[in-house]
C-alpha cells in the first residue's frame, strides 16, 4: 500500500500512542527534576553521610542500565510483593534513572559559579540554604540548561522503552501495527518522524526559550 494510504489508516492510532508518550514524558520529567536538585545538592553537602548517600544513589542508577532497572521494577519487585502498574513502573524507572544524571549536571553547574559569589552571599550573612536558593542556583541556570535540555530530549526518547512493559505508547503502537502489516520501514520511519517532530518543534523550542530567559536573568543578553 502507498505511504499515504498507510498514514491515513494508522496515523490516528500512532497519534493516540504519542499522547501516552507525552504523558509518561511529563510525569517522568517532573520526578527527574526533583531528584536532580535533591541529590545534586546532597552531593555537595559537607556532611559525609548525606554526601555518601547521594553518591551511592547516583552511581547506582547511572551505573545500571535503564532497561535493567525497568525490568527490575516491573518483573522482580512483584516477586518481593510490590506490584506497580506498568505506567507507574515506567515513570518511576525513568525518573529515578534520569534524576541521577541530572544530579551530576546540577552539581557541575553549582561548582562552576565563581567563588566570589559565595563569599559575597556569606558576607551578607545569608544562611547556606538562602545562599543556594537565592544566589548560586539562579546563576547556574545558563550553565545547566544546555546539558539539561540534552537530558530531557533523551528522556523523551527513553520513554520508548516503556513499550516493553505494556504501556501503550508510541513505540508500542508502532510494534503492534508492524506485527500486523510487517511494513517495518514505514511504521518505524513514521514513529521516528513523530518523535522528531515532538522534540524539534515542541520540546527543544521550549528549552531554548528557557535558556534565553536564563541568559537575560544574569544580564548576559
Amino acid at each position: 500500500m502507498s505511504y499515504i494510504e498507510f498514514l491515513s489508516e494508522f496515523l490516528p492510532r500512532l497519534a493516540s500512542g504519542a499522547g501516552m508518550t507525552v504523558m509518561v514524558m511529563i510525569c517522568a520529567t517532573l520526578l527527574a527534576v526533583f531528584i536532580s536538585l535533591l541529590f545534586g545538592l546532597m552531593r555537595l553537602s559537607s556532611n559525609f553521610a548525606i554526601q555518601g548517600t547521594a553518591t551511592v544513589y547516583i552511581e547506582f542508577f547511572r551505573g545500571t542500565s535503564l532497561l535493567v532497572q525497568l525490568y527490575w521494577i516491573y518483573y522482580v519487585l512483584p516477586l518481593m510483593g510490590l506490584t506497580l502498574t506498568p505506567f507507574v513502573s515506567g515513570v518511576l524507572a525513568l525518573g529515578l534513572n534520569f534524576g541521577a544524571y541530572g544530579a551530576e549536571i546540577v552539581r557541575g553547574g553549582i561548582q562552576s559559579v565563581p567563588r566570589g559569589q559565595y563569599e559575597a552571599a556569606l558576607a551578607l550573612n545569608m544562611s547556606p540554604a538562602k545562599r543556594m536558593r537565592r544566589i548560586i542556583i539562579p546563576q547556574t541556570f545558563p550553565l545547566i540548561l544546555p546539558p539539561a535540555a540534552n537530558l530531557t530530549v533523551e528522556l523523551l526518547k527513553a520513554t520508548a522503552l516503556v513499550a516493553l512493559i505494556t504501556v501503550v505508547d508510541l513505540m508500542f503502537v508502532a510494534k503492534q501495527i508492524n506485527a500486523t502489516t510487517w511494513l517495518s520501514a514505514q511504521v518505524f520511519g513514521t514513529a521516528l518522524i513523530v518523535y522528531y517532530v515532538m522534540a524539534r518543534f515542541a520540546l527543544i523550542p521550549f528549552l531554548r526559550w528557557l535558556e534565553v530567559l536564563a541568559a537575560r536573568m544574569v544580564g548576559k543578553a
Partner: protein
Amino acid sequence: DELTDRINAGEPIRLGFATAIPWAYPGDNGEPLGFVNALTLVVLEEMGITNYTTSVNEWAGLIPGLQANRYDIITGGMYILKSRCENINFSDPIGLFGDAMLVPAGNPQGIHNYQDVIKTGATLVTGAGFNTVEAAKKEGVPDGQMMLVAGEVEILAAMKAGRADAAVQTFFGAKEHVDKSDGKFEVTDPADMPEWTQNWVGIGMRHSDTDFLAAFNEAMAKVIGGEKWMEAVAPYGYTEFQLPGDDASTEYACANR
C-alpha cells in the same frame, strides 16, 4: 488455590500473550485474537468463565510476567519444553506444531531444514531465545551461521535486508510473513523439518494454581476438537491436522522436549 478463589469471587481472569499472528495477538482494543486465544475462550466458557481481561507483552517477558502475577494464564501459544516446565505449568496440549524455514521466493539455495543450512553454509536468522535456537544447536548448525536478533520484526527485516539466507520460525509465523511480504518469500513444508522439533503447545499457568489447572484440563477434554472449537480457530488456519492426538501428554513433552 488463589486463582480459583479470585475467579469464584467473580474477578476477571487475566490472559497474557504477545503479538504473534496468527497464534495470539490483540485487536485494536486489545481484545484477544489468534487461535490460541480463541480456543482458550471456548474452554473458559465451558468452565463458565466469561469475564476476562488481556495483557499484551514482549514474547520474552511472558513467563516473568506470569511469575510476577501480572496475568493468570499465558495464551501466547507456547511450546511445552522441559526448560519451561521447570518454571510454569502447562495445560494438556492444545495442538502439535512444527517449525518451517522462511526462504526467498523460489528457494534458490534449496533450504528445507537445518542440515541444508549446514550444507549450503547459509546464514540462518532467528530470535534470541526462541526454541529454534536450541533446535539448531542440537542439529549441529555452527554459531558462525546463526544470526540472533531481538524478535519477529528483526527476523523479517533481516530477510528483507538480505542479511540472512533463511529464517527458521513456527510454520504459522512463517506463513504470516509470506502473506505480508507480497511474494518476496516462501515457506518450506514443516514435514521437511526433523520430527523431534515438532512441539506440543499448551496454556501456561503458575505452579501454584493447581486446582485451576485440573479444572481447565477437565473442561478442555470436553470441547477439544469439537464443533465449537473448530469453528473458533478456523479463521486462523488451524485445522484438524494440528490437533494434538490422543497419545499427546504434557508430562511426555516436559520430559522429552
